[in-house]
């Protein structure tokens, strides 16, 4: 056999030298007999038939229905109150403020609205402002910001990104924070008073910290030069055109909530996904376990009306809501789970019938002889 091999080697050599197209193969070209190359890898070959998928449908049904019920109940337990203070209606208290709006007015327009809570709110209450028809998800609006500036980058502070146009500079000075989002910051002030049985107005304490994401406040948003003396840090910049005060005066009392790391500002900067949205405004913390956070009764909402929405048919609302693990009140998911669970269960039954009618002949291994 050896001699034959030599002869072959020799042959392979000279044909290789020719080199046109394929050089002579030195070894047998027999393909390897491996499971992979011969496409015989061990494989699981499920066949979707009524019989095989039956359990899946029942399992889905059995899991989804309880989840749905749980979600529905949770959602129902959430208490929510909503009041529209836009002032579209002439009878509304805020009608005048809404009509006579001007960005330049120095005297703030105030109005107040009365409302009654039928049921007490037991746990922590989240106070939201809601805007309707406000397209915070407009493409050019969403982009109109400079994230490096907001992160405290000193060069971006002085030279904001082009994306901020036309709110990039004002009177030759760079705007801080630049861009349309910041420019359109929601600037109504809301206060809540409880009118007790004697008619005295009790101001309800509103907590304004902890309303923004922790990471946004502590990582993403940074004041230039840290938090030391913001007036100096923001020197040489201009306030956004629609703002009444510069960014370092957003919360003069609390340096931890001032400048770019002002939580109201941060909340606003997380642009809403849909044109009708709410944003967390304040938190009303539960004081004691015995008394409800907001007892039922009459309340007064005092509004410093700064924010115009009539130009786009918008609405402004104030929302009070308790909160659960699933967020705000929304029965949709619970109903969806119940419905889908029921459908699956029903389909499972249908499939069972189909299985009995058609399937057994496929799966039976009996060979008619």
């Amino acid at each position, binding site marked *: 056999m050896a001699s034959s091999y030599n002869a072959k080697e020799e042959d392979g050599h*000279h044909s290789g030298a020719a080199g046109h197209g394929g050089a002579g193969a030195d070894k047998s070209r027999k393909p390897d007999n491996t499971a992979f190359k011969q496409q015989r890898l061990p*494989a699981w070959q499920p066949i979707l038939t009524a019989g095989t998928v039956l359990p899946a449908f029942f399992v889905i049904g059995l899991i989804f229905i309880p989840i749905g019920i749980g979600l529905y109940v949770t959602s129902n337990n959430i208490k929510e109150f909503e009041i529209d203070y836009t002032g579209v209606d002439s009878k509304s208290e805020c009608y005048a403020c809404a009509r006579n709006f001007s960005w330049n007015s120095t005297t703030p327009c105030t109005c107040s609205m009365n409302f009654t809570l039928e049921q007490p709110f037991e746990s922590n209450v989240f106070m939201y402002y809601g805007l309707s028809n406000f397209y915070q998800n*407009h493409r050019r609006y969403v982009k109109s910001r400079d994230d490096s500036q907001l992160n405290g980058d000193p060069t971006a502070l002085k030279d904001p990104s082009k994306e901020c146009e036309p709110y990039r500079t004002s009177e030759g000075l760079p705007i801080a924070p630049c861009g349309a989002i910041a*420019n359109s910051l929601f600037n109504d002030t809301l206060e809540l008073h409880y009118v007790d049985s004697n008619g005295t107005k009790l101001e309800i304490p509103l907590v304004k910290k902890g309303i923004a994401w922790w990471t946004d406040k502590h*990582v993403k948003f940074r004041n230039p030069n840290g938090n030391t003396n913001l007036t100096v840090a923001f020197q040489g910049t201009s306030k956004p055109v629609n703002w009444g005060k510069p960014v370092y005066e957003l919360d003069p009392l609390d340096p931890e909530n001032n400048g770019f790391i002002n939580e109201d500002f941060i909340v606003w900067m997380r642009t809403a996904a849909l044109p009708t949205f709410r944003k967390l405004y304040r938190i009303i913390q539960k004081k004691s376990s015995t008394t409800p956070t907001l007892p039922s009764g009459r309340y007064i909402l005092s509004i410093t009306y700064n924010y115009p929405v009539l130009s786009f048919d918008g609405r402004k609302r104030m929302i009070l809501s308790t909160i659960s693990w699933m967020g705000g009140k929304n029965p949709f998911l619970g109903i969806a789970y119940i419905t889908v669970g029921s459908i699956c269960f029903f389909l499972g039954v249908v499939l069972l019938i189909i299985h009995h009618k058609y399937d057994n002949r496929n799966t039976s291994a009996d060979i008619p002889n």
Partner: protein
Amino acid sequence: MPWMNPLARIRDAWRGQRARDKELRNLVSNLPYEGLDKHKQPNRHFPGNGIKTTKYSILFFLPMNLFEQFHRLANLYFVGLAILNFVPMVQAFEPEVALIPICVILALTALKDAWEDFGRYQSDKELNGLPCFVYSRKKKCYVEKRWKDVRVGDFVKVESNDTVPADLLLLFTSDPNGVCHIETANLDGETNLKQRRAVPGACVTDPEFEPESFTGVVICEKPNINLNHFKCYIEKVDKEKLGAGISNLLLRGCTVRNTGYAIGFVVYAGHETKSMLNNNGPRYKRSRLERRLNVDVIFCILLLVLMCIIGSLGHYLWLESMPGVPLYLVPHGDGHLDTPSLASFYMFFSMIILLQVLIPISLYVSIELVKIGQIFFITNDLDLYDEDTDSRVQCKALNITEDLGQIQFIFSDKTGTLTENKMVFRRCSIMGIEYPHKENAVRLSVLNKRDEDEDVLFSQTPSTKQPWSLDSEEPPEKKSERTSKSKAHSDVAFSSPLETEVIPDQKLLRQLGGTDRTDAYLDFFLALAICNTVVVSMATGKRRRSSVFLQRRQSTPLDTFSSLMKKLGSWTCLRIRSTPDTSPSAQELSGDLTGGQTRHLHVPPRGTTPAVPTDELCYEAESPDEAVLVHTAKAYGFVLLSRTPDSVTVRLPSGAQLRYEVLDTLTFDSTRKRMSVLVRHPISKQCILYTKGADYAIMELLETPHGGKLQTDIASDTQQHLDCYAKDGLRTLCITKKVLSDREYENWAVKRHQALTAMDDREQLIMDSAVTIETDLCLLGATGVEDRLQDNVPDTIMSLREAGIRVWVLTGDKTETAVNIGYACRLLEPDDLLINMSCQNKITCTSTLNCALEEVRRFADDPRNVDTTPDISLVIDGRTLTMVTSPDLRERFVDLAKRCRSVLCCRVTPLQKSHVVKFIREKLKVMTLAVGDGANDVNMIQAADIGVGVCGQEGMQAVMASDFAISRFKHLKKLLLVHGHWCYSRLANMVIYFFYKNAANVNLLFWFQFFCGFTANAMIDHWLMIFFNLIFTSVPPVMFGIMDKDVSAEMLLGLPELYRTGQGKGEYTFFTFWMSMLDAFYQSLVAFFVPYYTYRGSNIDIFSFGTPLNTISLFTILLHLSIEIKAWTFVHVIVIVGSVLLYFGVTLAYGFMYLNYSGFWTLQTQMADPMFYLVCLIATVIALLPRYLFHVLKNSIAPSPIVQARHLDTLEPSARDQWMKEWRSFRGGVQDKTPDESVPPSPSLESLNDDSIMDDEFTLNVITESRHRPGSL
């Protein structure tokens, strides 16, 4: 380079261009100009021998490659979009982001191209650097140069076993006859040696050729691609013209064999050589699926435009409805806002950018990748590997794999494709008397039936090993393996050299021995020995790849041809030897042959006598027919000893050697269907023309019966015998002789010479000259040669037919032969309705056609045959075929052909073959496959949608022209039924899935537009959006396209019916496309609106909203794929799980690291929220429920054959086989029905009323469903 006037340089370049473009080139020797400046060289205009097959150079790779890629419309589209994105008015993404996908796609493709080009560069470098010997005037000898330094006009010396570096006009060889043997395996794969000869009279010097003495001008034609054609003459100083042709040309890439050395004049170098001109890369064919796919891409574009129009219209209305200027409307830099109409106009383009992914950019690259994977698996299939030739299946066209799964018509050649093309001599008829060669037949049948006997014989008589050309093609190690192994393959016995041996017929031997009418008999065998183009070479000196047996047995060094010839001369007497393997009759025969008659029948066993030289004769034949005839002649003692262009040496049974002078050889061509050799008898000095050819070509040319009744009798007897042979399926040839007077010859020779030296119309003139001499032939006899069917051909044809493929066999053979083979390979069945169309003129043809149609229609209209394909077979001959394909009968013939299960076309020319293929392909709009092995099939192979070449005995031309090359016909079965089916179903499903995937993903963005004022905003970060298509969801479908397996190979082979799913429109149709698009819309609706209603009115921000959407989309898309995947292997699991992990990994990392991302920390926050999981879970379930349910219901209520086969697949092997048999039995034709079987399965459905079967809906289902399809073609 010396200074040269620029003007002169331009003039020179222009002159060079003209010189290259001229029809005729004048070339002179370079030697007188050696060492001069380049611009003084006479041949400077012609390219050098260096080659560069690379497409690109390093410097220009990028621009050239990009230019190339931009020829693709899809790429252009995406580049256009990317550019559009730089227009600030409309930009939807950050411009850089939009560039990424197109850049990645371009880069991937460029990388692939660069890698391929680098391979070419390396092989070029290797080739250019090969050494060769070029004559140098200064050194007065041949100096070693590299290939690339060879130039036109040089004299190159090529030694034995060297490769020819450029196209050389052969001037001198070491052979005294001026012959040079070459092997063209590198060029066309033909391994038999060919003779080339030096231009006669070109060199005057003796004994060594002096290149410096060559002063003539070589005038040759412009380089062309034709390998078998070359026109040239040498004009000497004295104006004498010496004609030269292809027989004087050594082509680049050939290997010189058996010749000491050869010296040639370089006529074409480098890229102008014929081999380089023939060297085109893989051809690009567009598959049917790809054509359909392009239509769907257009649909996608329309859809995109529609969506964009909706978007821009919506934006307009949204802006119009606004009472004032809201805060969120961002004005331009100068503070103005666009008017609503202008803004919506811009928005249209922004939408296009946003939704661009609807047109799947990565689809084309993915398809290419998938096809590479599919080809990898096809070429690695062990079942498609042929041990004997050590060859795998070759895929030459890289992009039509899926077409293999849609074939409806197969056009097959017969010889060499269905049959082995290894000929066995069976019978002959001489002077009207038949010699049946019974002993030979007995011996062959014994060999075939009892293989183990052959082993014994083999070991007893190792010296009988005759390494004739056909066998020696296989590598020696294989051969030794074969003999050592027990004979597993039946073809082993067949191809064994014993079969080249012929046991002479006793009667014929006696006849030869006697004195009665011997002349004709002698002439007959002389004709067999002489009238061919067989080249004789020594077994030892032949090639190094010759038989192991010989090399082991004889350790003698290689003898040169001439010394052997001398040795031969000393042999005067040969002893009769009969080897033990011969049958008793042969022994008896040897006894008969005493009395001074010497025969060389078989080689003496080793050790008894010194090796007989004839053993070492190797016959290198271009066709096996020729070889077998030479061997036959040899068996009767007429041994062809050598052949040079001028002479043929034959040893007669008496031992005398006759050296015939060959005056001319009129080679075979398909129009004449015959070949002739004109020789001068060495003793009588007569001019004799021996002609052999197809019977119908010869019979017309027989001499008019003035020579008495005898000739006519012989002719009619022979014709009878021929018909009889044909019925037995033998290939027939007629042998004739003609004696010419010297005058006749001289007259003819002048004409012939004119024809040979003519520059224009040379072929036609040469053929005309051949026709003029081939008249008034005298019939000597006829031969019948058997060409056996290859292994498993009947089984393969059966399976193909069951798979719904119509098989047409096109052959040049006689009708009877063809019909016989047709029955043997079960193309025709005994109970078929056989329509035979063979008409002399158009009128009968028309009426026959009408009758046939009538008959067929009646058969089809018969209510009993409703659901069946009528088993109608058509046999038609070439002449009739031409008539029925004429415009007026065409429609009717198409109608008939449509109804025929199999068609056999006889006596068709190569051109007709391709006409038939084109005709059917165009008229019936079907997928066609043509399979053939010879040069005569090349046209057909190129005309069909898929051309398959069989690497056979007739060279590689068919393989070169083919898209797929296989080594045996039986491989077609697995190639089509398994790989074809898989490739098609994989690719079809993948393409549909791709469209679905992109649509499902993009529609999310579209729905979002309704809630963002149609501002082309996205709720997902652009980077993540790009990654989504490019990274997260791109690998699973590709893997799906390469590896999914809907049914196992065993099932597909066992139930050929399953192949029908791919035929016609198959799985990828208008319907399936739109269904998946609808599904995509539905799923995207769910994926959008479930989170929408969940988060509506809440304080969710845009990216937190986009995260669940994207996640749902990912899960839906991947789980959707999981529903489609039919076979899960660990690769599938890894890829799918990997994609999910990658998605979460990348998104988390992105949200964590990228501070400037407005959606910073989004996914992290979402993943901490239980709602996220609840939303994703329910949305995914709702989205997939319909498809899941659809599959379940369909598989349960109306399972497709594929699903049923999948069910069978899960059964035990034994049970499975039984079911399969059960299933197939309904097809009516699977049982091994032999012609005498009394009850052939009826094709009508009525026969299914067997109760046990009727109960079984499962099987019935398949029948009805699959039966409907072919009818609706």
